[in-house]
């Protein structure tokens, strides 16, 4: 669950974005930017400020993506790839510029686990799910809220319609750029918090390119989760478990080729896409198309 938390947050954000027909490859950059923002924000030992700064950084990067991919209707894949490179370069340079060439031994306090009263006493499941750092509880909160937003409100209907029937929706007078902007900002905020979680709840420090592909994993999770909030949660746990196994094997000193375990979720995603793992899944029809 601990390794799954940032993945789930980022994936839930990307889920909303993709339902509106936008594929934000720049999520990797958003997570990395969120991590860096969290580092800056938490400089004065203020964890809340750290999470807020990570969130703002994510919003800012998502807005940059929106300017190009939504407002200027540039290609989403190209914009996203460029944003990833931009954030990787900027955070790397700023980090070395601000904290010295090595950046050694820069640690900031992390959030400890906060066991939830009562719930933690549930046998087996309790300690796993309810004795976690606060961001994990945010996942529990965000997933149902997003589900409700997407499936039980007019806004959600508009968003899903944009993702599936772009032309009809535009003809019927829905403001496509507006909704895409809203979903992008939601995705950016969640992606930023996901990055902040990496710094403030896990590593306690920043490293160049520390998002290490988690943004891309989150995109895989959205696919594997069949573009549904509950599916995304389950898929996050699967990916989280795969990378947790890696640490376990390393810690136990077992000579197991853990890289092969790391590859499993990606292979599963590909199989799921191809329809081998259960029902064939369909991406939102308008995914990747300019609004």
């Amino acid at each position, binding site marked *: 669950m601990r390794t799954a938390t940032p993945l789930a947050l980022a994936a839930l954000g990307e889920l909303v974005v993709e339902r509106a027909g936008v*594929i934000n*490859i720049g999520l990797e950059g958003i997570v990395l930017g969120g991590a860096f923002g969290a580092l800056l924000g938490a400089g004065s030992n203020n964890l809340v400020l750290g999470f807020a700064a990570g969130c703002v950084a994510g919003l800012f990067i998502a807005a940059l993506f929106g300017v*190009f991919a939504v407002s*200027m*209707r*540039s*290609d989403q*894949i*190209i*914009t996203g*790839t*460029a*944003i*990833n*490179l*931009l954030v*990787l*370069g*900027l955070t*790397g*340079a*700023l*980090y*070395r*510029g601000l904290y010295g*060439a090595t950046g050694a031994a820069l640690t900031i306090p992390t959030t400890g686990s906060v066991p939830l009263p009562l719930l933690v006493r549930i046998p087996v499941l309790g300690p796993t799910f309810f004795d976690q750092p606060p961001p994990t509880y945010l996942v529990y909160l965000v997933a149902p809220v997003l589900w409700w937003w997407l499936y039980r409100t007019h806004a959600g209907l508009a968003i899903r319609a944009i993702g599936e029937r772009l*032309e009809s929706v*535009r003809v019927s007078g829905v403001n496509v750029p507006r909704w895409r902007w809203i979903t992008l900002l939601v995705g950016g905020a969640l992606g930023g918090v996901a990055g902040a979680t990496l710094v403030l709840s896990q590593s306690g420090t920043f490293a*160049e390119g520390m998002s290490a*592909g988690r943004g*891309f*994993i989150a*995109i*895989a999770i959205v*696919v594997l989760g069949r573009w549904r909030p509950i599916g995304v949660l389950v898929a996050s746990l699967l990916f989280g478990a795969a990378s947790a196994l890696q640490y376990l094997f390393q810690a136990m000193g077992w000579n197991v*080729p853990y*890289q*092969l375990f*790391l*590859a499993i979720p*990606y*292979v599963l*995603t*590909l199989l799921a*896409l*191809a*329809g081998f793992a259960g029902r*064939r899944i369909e*991406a939102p029809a308008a*995914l*990747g*198309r*300019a*609004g």
Partner: protein
Amino acid sequence: MSGPAPAADASTNRWRRRIASWMSTGTLAAVVAVLSLALLWMALRLAGFDATLALGALWRGSFGNWYALTSSTLVRATPLVLTGLAVAIAFRAGVWNIGADGQLLVGAALATAVGLAWGDALGWAALPIALVAGAVGGACWAGIAAVLRTRFGVLEVISTIMLNFVALDLVGYLVRGPLQEPSHAYPQSNEIPAQMHLPFLIPGTRLHWGFALGVCAAGILWWAMRSTAAGFRVRAIGANADAARIAGRVDVARTTTRVLLLSGALAGLAGAIEVSGVTYALYENISPGYGYTAIAVALLAGLDPLGVLGTGILFGALEAGALSMQREASVPSVVVTAVEAALVLLLLAMSRRGAAARVIGRFAGARSPSPEEAL
């Protein structure tokens, strides 16, 4: 989007339009490059670095002298040119191969495996066989995405990204498992036999024959895209897949599959060349994201193979110069990654208007024509 032009009109204007398009692509690329460097200068000034010294170092480390040009810029440019070509031809056909990085890794791994297993037995033939093995490896990796696309309708954007990570994990496993050097101390393979090393192109430098292969590939692809039926089919699909299928009776599935295979082969060749020309062994981090930088390389070149040669060298220069910038002016070298990104974003912003809009719009817009554009 303009309507279909009459055939005679198109043929008389073809050359004029081609030259105009080249000029506008070239001009745009130059303007964008200069703007990005100006941005870098300002950013360095603001960050408190000696910006003039840094840019001077960038120049000295890339084009400033013969050794820097040949031994760093062009060596660095080689994989960028090849992966840039891989991306350019795929994008030209409207195939979103984001997986050049994974294809490069698999190519490098297969070339190394072949070299270590049979390098001594094969003698002089080992090098060409290893290069072919690299290309085959890359093509197979891209072939997975091709099958997923044509048989199962999986978006290649997503599948190639997934395959990048699978390839990374695969190489990580190989250098710690079957291909690890005998002492098992480092995550890397043994060195490949000496007769498999690519010979140096210019004596006294580190520039190897791989660069010449890259130049040849660019020339051949430029000619093929321009003058062959296959090249025409690729361009037709990229412009409008439905029109190509209905009016041109182009087998879209077969052509996109072939383009993906060729694209993967080029990226795999880049990997094999890195192993046999630069590193002489397989490392986990043999690619510092060449396949991703390649997207910027291809776009800045307007997806033109000869243009890729130019932008590949430009990006090779940036990355080579970045190292000397870090040495001399202690500017972090990763900053050039941001410069590369700024190049792409500026290009996107500027291609919104002006003549160059066609160059990018041709493929970016072709995939997603909106009703306003279609009307």
